[in-house]
């Protein structure tokens, strides 16, 4: 039997009932990787031996009578910007191509403690800068729904391997949409928790006031399970918040009667494909038919989020990436005559074009004489965007929007025009700027390509998002539709 298509909660039941072992499940995933990874290219590293060893250890514990927890023996993939002790962690950058971290990220430790089996590290846009995974310093990941198209980004590898059943779930990271947009493009569930909800300790820093780790899963129940495992305060991350973490699975399969859905008109009138607008509009109508109440909103600052983001993000990135000097770890240029030359040659040959572009833009925005006009201005606009959401949430419980303005585009289509690429994030960035939680769930198809619906919640109210997402998923049953690498069928493969 093929187990790779299982969801986390399904696999857990089989492991718990001693019907399958973690080793069988892990082997099934490895076979699947062998079969389809040649098309998908989602993994930078596959940790086969490590995974099989861990799986056998888990099986032994279970055989000895240990009661398996919800994630015991479950194979998962980790984005390659999350540190895994002694296992290659590259950020898909040449500058970190040989980096084996001396410590593990808190999220990875938590997953290991709960018995997860890591099967590999996933490809991404270099340092998480991009929306298509084409900026990877190694290779481009392909979309399982149509390999001529991008999986989105920057967590494109994580989203593609979950969509292609090469992992039961994955962790991604989201700075301006990097979990939600690829989840939308790949037809999976991608959740960005509230800023501060999940520890960033061991997440390689990109734009620190925005970065957040979250799960990419095959359905909403799995999403809740992974949130249970990774959320919570961590003394190692001073921005992590000591807030209570509920059992998120309690919000699955609940009634949504009376829930107020905010629908901001700006999200449906900005640059958006008509077909995507139609699909997401129908999604809102469907939710309303399930007893939720639709509330029309105005959020006048929405359009200003993206330009403000593309100052704040590069500014923080240029500062964070100053550490790559070729001295303490990573790639180094060996023939430099002096230190200054070593810095310049190392950084120039180690970083790819988008990373250089953001470092340049950020350095400019922070440089003397421009700081007030650019960086400070952007931070003030950030306050206005947060205010928009505060106002909106006085009248509704969640806000429902498209995740991205288009479905997946063709590889190469936008790579030469950075601004066109940035516009992918137009609906996800405002949420990041306000630090709010949001999920992208599949809501339909346009020409066989998945469309994502974004559900945004109040700070630390991930539960209500799960409730609405779960009700919606149950109605559409799109989690049963699987990609067939070019053609697709309804009803599951």
């Amino acid at each position, binding site marked *: 039997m093929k187990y790779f298509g299982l969801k986390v909660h399904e696999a857990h039941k089989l492991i718990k009932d001693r019907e399958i072992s973690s080793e069988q499940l892990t082997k099934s995933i490895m076979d699947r990787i062998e079969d389809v990874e040649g098309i998908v290219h989602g993994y930078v590293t596959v940790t086969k031996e490590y995974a099989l060893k861990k799986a056998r250890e888990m099986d032994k514990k279970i055989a000895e009578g240990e009661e398996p927890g919800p994630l015991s023996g479950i194979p998962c993939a980790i984005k390659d910007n999350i540190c895994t002790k002694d296992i290659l962690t590259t950020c898909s950058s040449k500058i970190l191509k*040989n*980096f*084996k971290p*001396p*410590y593990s990220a808190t999220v990875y430790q938590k997953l290991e403690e709960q018995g997860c089996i890591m099967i590999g590290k996933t490809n991404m846009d270099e340092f998480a800068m991009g929306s298509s995974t084409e900026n990877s310093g190694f290779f481009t990941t392909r979309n399982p729904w149509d390999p001529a198209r991008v999986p989105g980004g920057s967590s494109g590898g994580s989203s593609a391997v979950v969509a292609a059943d090469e992992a039961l779930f994955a962790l991604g990271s989201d700075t301006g949409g990097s979990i939600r947009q690829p989840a939308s493009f790949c037809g999976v569930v991608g959740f960005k928790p509230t*800023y*501060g909800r999940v520890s960033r300790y061991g997440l390689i820093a990109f734009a620190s*006031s925005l970065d957040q780790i979250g799960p990419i899963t095959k359905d909403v129940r799995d999403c809740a399970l992974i949130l249970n495992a990774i959320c919570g305060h961590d*003394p190692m991350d*001073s*921005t992590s*918040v000591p807030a209570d973490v509920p059992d998120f699975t309690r919000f699955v399969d609940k009634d949504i009667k009376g829930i107020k859905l905010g629908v901001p008109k700006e999200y449906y009138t900005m640059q958006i494909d008509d077909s995507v607008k139609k699909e997401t509009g129908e999604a809102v109508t469907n939710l309303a038919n399930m007893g939720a109440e639709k509330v029309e909103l105005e959020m006048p*600052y929405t*359009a*200003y989020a993206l*330009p*403000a983001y*593309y*100052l704040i993000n590069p500014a923080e990135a*240029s500062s964070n990436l*100053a550490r790559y000097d*070729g*001295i*303490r*770890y*990573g*790639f180094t240029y*060996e023939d*430099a*005559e*002096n*230190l*200054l*030359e*070593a810095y*310049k040659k190392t*950084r*120039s040959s180690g970083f790819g074009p988008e990373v*250089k*572009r953001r*470092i*340049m*833009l950020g*350095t*400019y925005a922070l*440089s003397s004489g421009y700081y007030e006009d*650019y960086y*400070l*201005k*952007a*931070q*003030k*606009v*950030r*306050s*206005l965007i*947060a205010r928009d959401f505060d106002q909106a949430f006085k009248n509704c419980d969640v806000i429902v929007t498209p995740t991205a303005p288009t479905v997946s585009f063709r590889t190469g289509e936008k790579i030469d025009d*950075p*601004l066109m690429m940035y516009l992918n994030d137009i609906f996800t960035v405002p949420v990041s700027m306000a*630090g709010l939680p949001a999920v992208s769930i599949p809501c339909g198809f346009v020409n066989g390509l998945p469309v994502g619906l974004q559900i945004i919640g109040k700070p630390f109210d991930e539960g209500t998002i799960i409730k609405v997402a779960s009700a919606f998923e149950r109605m559409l049953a799109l989690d049963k539709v699987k990609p067939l690498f070019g053609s697709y069928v309804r009803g599951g493969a």
Partner: protein
Amino acid sequence: MEITKGNVEHVAELARLEITEHEKDIFTEQLSNILDYVEMLNELDTKEVSPTSHVVPLVNVFREDEIKEVLKKDEALKNAPEKEDGYFKVPRVIE
């Protein structure tokens, strides 16, 4: 905002990046386009608005000053391209 090739050269120097003539031309054009786009922020009056540097309402996060386990020297040096006698080795700094 028009960016000149001179601006690009200056910023590259600040960021410790060595860029080719070709890259200079591309970055000059692309950075100008991006800065033109962000110009729309000036449509907003933000005189009375205070900046947001962080969205989380946390102020000072303190912990007890206790001795704890830290990374061992050989672990910290493990990834160093060049090391000697327990130190990171760098190219000549003073000419």
